[in-house]
């Protein structure tokens, strides 16, 4: 299935990812340098004894040079050790593994909703540009981009959890325990997130589809008498599929970040909960760990999108 050219492309892309990951670890580790004053004193928290401060200094290798500290952190991270939480003592990697599936389910559901609603809306607007339908859809899209998604989440809770108890207002259930209940808990957060996603997909799809549909080769298709429906499905969508894939990838990354805030509305114990609590209490190993984990997911998503794009459009690898 893979041609030598696309195999070479995959190899090239994997190699390009390496410096990005290295730089990302540098940024994540460098976060600790933003802490004002003596890092060990800050990390030890208020009323810490001298002994505790010395312990922390040694534990995090703060008595060594920055590069040595950095190398140590990367070495441990490569072995799956992201240090321990200062608050609970739990290994950071364990906390991330515990919280990530909850967040992932919400992101996946939100992405699905965004595409399921955004694609038809974008197509409808693009096939009738300049009409009232187009204006209506694009008007709603503008609202969707500007609405604070956690506010929308509150309104959804007020409506669907408090006024009509259709969905639960708070918490989450692991997908592995009870898939149906897990999805029920994830539906409202995902719907709140999807508002922006639907708007984004509809806007982007409309603009690229309008461009394709007004191009010379589509005019030729009309001239030779092809039905508008099959022009749209066979030629229009195929030409914008790579665009759509890119939009979906960017959207997945943005949803991942946005979940952090929406989770707080529903008191969902996901990645957002983890990093917000850690940031408030200056539990720095956890902050670094979560930021790092999210960057890795984003970089992996981008890589996946690039590879899928080269499969969809064989020209990409040869440019």
């Amino acid at each position, binding site marked *: 299935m893979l041609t030598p050219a696309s195999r070479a492309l995959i190899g090239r892309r994997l190699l390009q990812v390496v410096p*990005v990951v290295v730089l990302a670890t540098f940024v994540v580790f460098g976060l600790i340098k933003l802490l004002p004053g003596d890092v060990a004193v800050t990390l030890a928290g208020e009323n810490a004894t001298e002994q505790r401060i010395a312990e922390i200094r040694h534990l995090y290798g703060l008595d060594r040079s920055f590069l040595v500290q950095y190398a140590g952190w990367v070495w441990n991270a490569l072995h799956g050790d992201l240090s321990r939480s200062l608050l609970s003592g739990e290994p950071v990697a364990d906390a991330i593994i515990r919280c990530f599936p909850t967040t992932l389910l919400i992101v996946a559901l939100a992405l699905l909703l965004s595409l399921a609603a955004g694609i038809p809306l974008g197509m409808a607007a693009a096939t009738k540009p300049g009409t009232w339908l187009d204006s209506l859809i694009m008007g709603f899209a503008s609202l969707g981009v500007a609405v604070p998604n956690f506010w929308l989440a509150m309104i959804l809770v007020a409506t669907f959890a408090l006024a009509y108890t259709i969905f639960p207002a708070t918490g989450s259930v692991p997908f592995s325990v009870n898939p149906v209940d897990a999805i029920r808990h994830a539906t409202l957060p995902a719907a709140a997130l999807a508002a922006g996603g639907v708007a984004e997909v509809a806007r982007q799809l409309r603009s690229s589809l309008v461009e394709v549909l007004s191009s010379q080769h589509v005019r030729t298709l009309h001239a030779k008498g092809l039905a508008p429906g099959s022009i749209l499905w066979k030629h229009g969508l195929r030409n914008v599929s790579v665009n759509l894939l890119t939009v979906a990838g960017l959207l997945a990354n943005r949803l991942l970040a946005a979940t952090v805030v929406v989770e*707080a509305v529903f008191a969902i114990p996901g990645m957002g909960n983890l990093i917000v609590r850690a940031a408030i209490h200056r539990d720095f190993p956890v902050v670094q760990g979560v930021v790092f984990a999210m960057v890795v997911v984003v970089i992996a998503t981008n890589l996946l999108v690039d590879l899928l794009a080269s499969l969809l459009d064989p020209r990409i690898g040869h440019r």
Partner: protein
Amino acid sequence: MSVVAPISSRRRAVLPLLRRLGRDRRAAVSIAVLLIIIGASLLAPWIAPYSPTAQDINNMLSAPSEAHWLGTDDLGRDTLTRLIYGASASLYAAFLAVAVAGALGVPVGMFAGYAGGWIDDVISRVIDTMLSFPAIVLAIGVTGALGIGLTNAMIAVGIVFAPQLARLVRARTLVVRQELYVDAARCFGAPTAHILRRHVLPNAIQPVIVQVALLLAVSLLAEASLSFLGLGIQPPSPSWGAMLARAYLNMELAPEQVYPPGLAILITALAFNTLGESMRTMLDPTIKRP
């Protein structure tokens, strides 16, 4: 990307844009809405009916009434008053974040684009890496490091958004660098700093102005998010995000209190976005108006 005619002063790049915006109905409405909100926030002490911290203990979580047009919060504070005062905190936050992003991103992007070669390669790689960080998550991390508070939170947001502006300015600078008037200035022996300031910046700045409008909307939403999470503004100062956090705690008792701050954020963000889109359409003749 449109080709912009050579312009030698910054003012001449901005003024015609503003004049053309005045003729665009959507842009004009957005500007009017923003001016009203900015005006209200500046005149808050004179136009707000109460003090933002005055408590009316007999009227807690009250519904809209003649005394309190938008009702009161859980401490009996007037919602309309806090909405007006909150505007200044939220707008200050948005402008601060974008100023930080501009101060960091524009010089770095211009330097990378003008220097070219390995310097450009290194800076571009760093920019690309920064762009793969989920913005709000990194902002939360940076805020955690700098310390909780509105100013720190928005500096964090600014740092996180800087790469977006840097990338944009770099791309424009690459184009402008090739222009004849830059060559001419170089031939006349103009110092690089002068060329960057007088020739490159004015011609690379237009897409930045568009992006600034869009970033203001995103920063406003970021302020609301961070303050809602408790990382931004601290009580008793009002901001729209902090008001939402309080209203949410009491949503079962007074659900209508959730609407004023949320709508304020929505309308302001919508105005910034519409303004940005209008400017983009104006600057780029290839975009077709929806």
